[in-house]
C-alpha cells in the first residue's frame, strides 16, 4: 500500500524524508532513535533534579559537596553525562535569587532537568532574562522583595547551572520524597519557587 503523505505538514514531511534518507544510507539505526526518544521522554526529567535538591535540603554534608563540586555530587545520585558534564549549583538565600538563561541558544542541564521547555529556548525569555529579570519573574508569578539581589547566569560555555531553591518553611517533618515533590522544574531554573506545603 502506498503511503499517503497528504495529511502531513511540510515540516513532518521534511523530517520523514530526512529520517528515510539517513536510514537508507546507514547513518542511523532506527532502533537507536527509539531508545533516544524513550530516554528523553520517560527517563530523564526534572524529577531527577528535584531529588538532588531534596537531598541537599536534608543532608548538609551533601549540600556542601553539591556547592563545592556539583558534577560529582549529582553523580552520587546517578545523574551524569551529556549536557551535565560540568555542573555548578547556585543557592538561593533570603538576600539573593539566582536565575539561569542561555541567551545564545538553549544550554540546559539535561541529566537533572531533562530537555528544556519551549519558553526557555524562545526569544522572549532569552532576550529579557538578562535585562529585566524582575519583569520576567513577574510573568512567572514570582515577586521578590526589592532588597533581594538577582543574579542571572548566562550559560555561554559548557558549564550548566542548577539553582538550589530555598527550602519552604513548615517542611521540617517532611520526608525526602515529600520534599522532592515540592521542587518544581522552574524553581531549579530560578523562574519559580518551590510549592508551599499542602499545595498540589
Amino acid at each position, binding site marked *: 500500500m502506498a503511503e499517503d503523505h497528504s495529511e502531513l505538514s511540510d*515540516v*513532518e514531511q*521534511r*523530517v*520523514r*524524508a*530526512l529520517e*528515510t*534518507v*539517513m536510514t*537508507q*544510507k546507514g*547513518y*542511523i*539505526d532506527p*532502533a*537507536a*532513535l527509539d*531508545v*533516544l*526518544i524513550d*530516554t*528523553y*521522554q520517560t527517563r530523564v526529567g*526534572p524529577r531527577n533534579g528535584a531529588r538532588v535538591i531534596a537531598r541537599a535540603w536534608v543532608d548538609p554534608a551533601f549540600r556542601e559537596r553539591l556547592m563545592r563540586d556539583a558534577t560529582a555530587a549529582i553523580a552520587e545520585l546517578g545523574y551524569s553525562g*551529556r549536557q*551535565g*558534564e*560540568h555542573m*555548578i549549583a547556585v543557592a538561593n538565600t533570603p538576600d539573593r535569587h539566582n536565575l539561569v538563561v542561555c*541567551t*545564545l*541558544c*538553549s544550554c540546559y542541564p539535561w541529566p537533572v532537568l*531533562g530537555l528544556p*521547555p*519551549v*519558553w526557555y529556548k*524562545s*526569544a*522572549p*525569555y532569552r*532576550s*529579557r532574562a*538578562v535585562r529585566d*529579570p524582575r519583569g520576567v519573574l513577574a*510573568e*512567572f508569578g514570582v515577586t521578590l522583595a526589592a532588597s533581594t*539581589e*538577582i*543574579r*542571572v547566569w*548566562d550559560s*555561554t*560555555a*559548557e*558549564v550548566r547551572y542548577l539553582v538550589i531553591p530555598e527550602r519552604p518553611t513548615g517542611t521540617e517533618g517532611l520526608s525526602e520524597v515529600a520534599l522532592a515533590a515540592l521542587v*518544581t*522544574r*522552574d524553581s531549579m531554573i530560578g523562574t519559580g519557587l518551590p510549592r508551599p506545603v499542602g499545595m498540589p
Partner: protein
Amino acid sequence: MPYVSHADIGGRTGFGPVVREPEGAIFHGIWEPRVHAMTVALGATGSWNLDMTRSARETLPDYLDLTYYEIWLGGLEKLLVEKGLVTPDELTAGCARHAPAPVSRVLKADQVAAILEKGAPTERAPTGPARFRLGQRVRTRATPAEHHTRLPGYVRGKTGIIERVLGAHVFADSHAQGLGEDPQWLYTVVFDATELWGSEATAGHSVSVDAWQPYLEAT
C-alpha cells in the same frame, strides 16, 4: 560573506511576553523528538562537533521565524549537506540517490545509554598559566567576531570581575571553525547591571557569562 549570528538576542527588546507551559510539556508534535534524536544520533557519527552544530543553527537566515526544533532540523540538514553526507536532491526526494559517505560510527541502540552517560566533557589540560585571577577586573572584547563565538553582544566591551576560574576548556570559536580544540582558560565574569544596561538597570542586579580568555583583556 560576513558571518551573521541570528541567535545573539540577549538584551534585545520587542519579542513580547514569556509563554509558560506546564512542566511536562516538552515536545509539540511527534516530529520534534525525532529531530532531537536524529541530532544526537548523527552527532555520534563524528562528522562534526557541538560547536559546529551551534554555528549551523545560528546562521540560518530565518532563525528568528522558526520554532526551536525547526532550527535544529535546518541546522542538521545544512551540516549534512556541507559535510557531504547527503545532497539536497536526496532531501527533496526523500530517498537516497548516491552512495553513503564514510562515517566513523553509527550509533546502535545498545550503545545509547553508554554514550549519553559518557557525554562530551570539554575540560582539557591547560597549555599555560591562567592570565587572570579571582577578583580581577577585566574588559571584554569590543569588536564583533567574524565567526561563531560565545561572547554575547550585550557584554561586548564591558568591564566585569573574574568570579570563578573554570579550568581550560575546548575553545568554541576555534572548534566551530574546524581549527581543533585549542583549549583556553574559561572564567565566570560577573557584570553589574548598570555596566550593561545603564540607567534603566535596577539596583542589586548582576549578570555573569562564562568567557574564554581570548575574549578578555586586563583593565
